[in-house]
């Protein structure tokens, strides 16, 4: 930084404001996909209904529970650190990471099953289906795929936070990094809450 150490003034409000602006951009990023979804769903209502039945709603709901719980643990982790309980904070942060990995494992099982059935973009099987089914699966893979990338990014981010808390780089008095990482994780969660009904419960 370009100021002498004494002049460095850490602006926590500013850091949070910046994070929220970044979260806006993420929402708009997914917003483009939601726009496409709504246009195609209006055009191919019946096909979307039918395609939704082919998805594994059990895994979808399980993943929802996993992500919601992980949002709780990350929130507890932030609060624990604020109140000076570093150990609890680390435990909860670790649990959040484990939940994130579990989510991805489920996703892997789910996607492999779809792909084994030949339901993936440009597959000979999918090309035989009506246009609406192609759109549904095109969007399904794009949206859950992009969401999955965000889960991966979130896990990496939280792992760094875990290390920072452990090495006292994030402390009771200076926890904005952890709080912002938590906000990011909540965003990943919220987007999933919209994806679940749009795809798995579309039937």
């Amino acid at each position, binding site marked *: 930084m370009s100021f002498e150490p004494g002049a460095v003034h850490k602006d926590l409000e500013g850091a949070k404001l910046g994070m929220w602006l970044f979260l806006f951009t993420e929402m708009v*990023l997914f917003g483009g996909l939601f726009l496409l979804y709504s246009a195609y769903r209006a055009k191919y209502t019946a096909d979307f209904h039918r395609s939704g039945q082919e998805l594994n709603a059990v895994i979808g709901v399980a993943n929802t529970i996993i992500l919601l719980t992980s949002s709780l643990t990350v929130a507890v982790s932030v609060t624990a650190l604020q109140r000076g309980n570093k150990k609890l904070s680390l435990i909860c942060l670790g649990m959040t990471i484990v939940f994130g990995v579990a989510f991805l494992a489920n996703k892997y099982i789910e996607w492999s099953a779809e792909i084994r059935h030949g339901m993936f973009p440009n597959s000979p099987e999918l090309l035989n289906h009506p246009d609406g089914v192609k759109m549904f699966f095109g*969007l399904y893979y794009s949206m859950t795929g992009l969401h999955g990338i965000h889960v991966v990014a979130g896990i990496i981010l939280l792992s760094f936070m875990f290390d920072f808390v452990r090495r006292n780089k994030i402390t009771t008095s200076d926890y904005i990094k952890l709080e912002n990482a938590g906000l990011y994780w909540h965003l990943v969660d919220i987007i999933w809450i919209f994806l679940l009904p749009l795809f798995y419960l579309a039937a």
Partner: protein
Amino acid sequence: MTNTVQNGDSVFRSYLEDGDRKGILAWILSTDHKRIGILYLACMIFLFLAAVTIGVLMRVEQLSMSAPVFSPRVYNAFFTVHGVIMIFMFVIPGLPAVFGNFFLPILIGARDVAFPRLNLMSWYFFVFGSVLAVSSLFTGNGAPDTGWTFYAPYSIRTGTNVTLAVFAAFVLGFSSILTGLNFLTTIHRLRAPGMSWTRMPLFAWSLYGTGWVQVLATPIISITLLLVIAERFFGIGVFDPAKGGDPLLYQHLFWIYSHPAVYIMILPAMGAITEIIPTFAHRTIFGYKAIAYSSIAIASVGSLVWGHHMFTSGMGEVANTMFSLLTFLVAIPSAIKVFNWTSTLYKGSIELKPPMLFALSFIFLFSIGGLTGLIQGALNVNTHLHDTYWIVGHFHYVMFGGTVMGFFAALLYWFPKMFGRMYSEKIAFLSWVPIFIGFNMLYFTMLVLGYMGMPRRYYAHLPQYHTPHVIASVGSFILAVGLVLFLANFVIALFKGKRAGQDPWGGKTLEWTIPTPPPRENFSEIPVITHGPYVYNPEVMP
């Protein structure tokens, strides 16, 4: 470059000398907003000249009716690359990244932007994206040939190197988002004590409006470009009519960003003009609040007019009518600004220095650009003008006559402050002549050509269009000479220019209260603001 500068009784070292590291590392690892601004400037001048060269080559092609100098395929690559470089690497980031970085913190009385390291990272994204875009020309199966708009379904079918170019635009978008985010936070958090919103210089206001558009519109192009890449790699089909996808949705998503992007381009230029005019009219800006709020009005209404790029796409009568109406509405805040600038001049004591000359040219050329925009915003006329040279002429009046002229005016205005050297005013005046004449020969002729029916993006033309094409080409050569002269002036000034004083123009905003070039931390003591930014005749200021 400069020695220590005396200011009153204290001695400052300028930011140009005060680095942590030696040589080039002192620049490319610096988080100083001023150095980052200069880094952007250096890259952009290079990219701008490259794109100008391609533009001139296109005009060379049009000197002959049919026997092309370049093959049609090369011509397609030319207009694509000219557009991609100019739009994504010069006109969109131009004023915010260069002058916004350098002057926004100074104008609001801060020592740096809110996130200095993020700021440096944005520059790296910019460089990375630019390198990718330029390398897309020389790698893969030939340079992209889709036009800068990457319209589906052609962009998902063509064998040329579209993927790399699209990814480059994605990376550049990221750079733009992070800059916008940084500026918004800076303006919210780092204004000096006493600098209320209505005491903020209007360039900062325009960057505020721009920042919101950057943050809220750019992600739409990001996702759209990612989907084009996904189409090309995996065939997901969302823009592919063969699979039930709708290419029209690509156009919607593309313009949901790319029309607001037009306001990312023009707003900061308007902001710079608003700083320049009061300085050289020696008069307080007329209608401060109207200008400030019209920036916000332009940013918000401008986000709702994207459909006017698609009047002939068959999206429907109701949508066409709505978008046409909104297009006429967005002209109002732009016109408010023009009226305020001219009212500022009224009864001012006008001093025609080079920055002022270019600022006045901005008003003239931008007005033509804006008014031709209204003509093509009318539905029936648009059917005739769509995809013709008229459109090309129109947006060059806005982008070049507006944004780039604003960029030039800002460069002339702030160059002495940035580098501590004065350029030759004579050469600056002299270069204006070929720029202004060449510009109008080139682009006004394009308006006429388009009205006559010449379609854009054709490598050849019919005999009835030949004479205007030759006039336009000659105009482009004159313009290019002017640009070279204009830029050479600064290169000479960097080494041989006379030392510039603290306030060479008699400006009243904060950048003129600190030494030239500014010290590394801008202010030894953060100023306390007690009045508005343009106190030429204090009795009328709040």
